[in-house]
């Protein structure tokens, strides 16, 4: 499943998520629910800024895997896994556990085809060696 397809599935499944964006390891936008690329870029920029600020909070400089900020007007969730980052905006008072679960499922949905491809490549290389 590509990133755009995974995001489409995510917004269909979760009624709480208003908008979302998937970023690659280099911070580039892989997919977004925003049709307007300027808004997608703005959300991507805020996501990277949030991850940077969260990173600076830790004195041991550990990699940030999740950030969630719940405010009166809504909430911003950021999840990082396997080099990819997903960010989502929800309305006020979201069910954070459910949102995080949906975001993680979405990220894993994107990652799976590449992992399968890698495994297949390794198996093929072994077969060739034999």
């Amino acid at each position, binding site marked *: 499943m590509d990133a755009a397809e995974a995001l489409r599935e995510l917004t269909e499944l979760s009624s709480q998520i208003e908008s979302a964006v998937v970023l690659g390891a280099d911070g580039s936008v892989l997919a977004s629910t925003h049709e307007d690329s300027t808004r997608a870029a703005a959300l991507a920029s*805020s996501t990277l800024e949030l991850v940077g*600020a969260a990173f600076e*909070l830790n004195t041991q400089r550990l990699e*940030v895997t999740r950030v*969630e*900020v*719940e405010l009166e007007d809504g909430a911003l969730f950021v999840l990082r896994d396997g080099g990819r980052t997903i960010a989502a905006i929800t309305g006020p008072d979201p069910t954070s556990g459910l949102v995080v679960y949906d975001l993680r499922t979405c990220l894993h949905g994107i990652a799976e085809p590449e992992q399968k491809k890698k495994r297949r490549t390794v198996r093929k290389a072994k077969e060739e060696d034999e």
Partner: protein
Amino acid sequence: MRKLVRLAVLVGLAIWAWRRFAGPSGPRERAGVSYADGSSVVLEPGSVGFERLASIARAALRP
């Protein structure tokens, strides 16, 4: 038995009244960060970390 029921009702009413009039009102603001080693931190309004994260999130939430 009747006294026990009356006591239970009174306790229930007292808890309801406490939550209704003295409990936190409106949506609660908070921020949480998790790290690769499994550790996590929850930031409450008023802390420097929360205000930094909240200002970034507010900008993102603005349509």
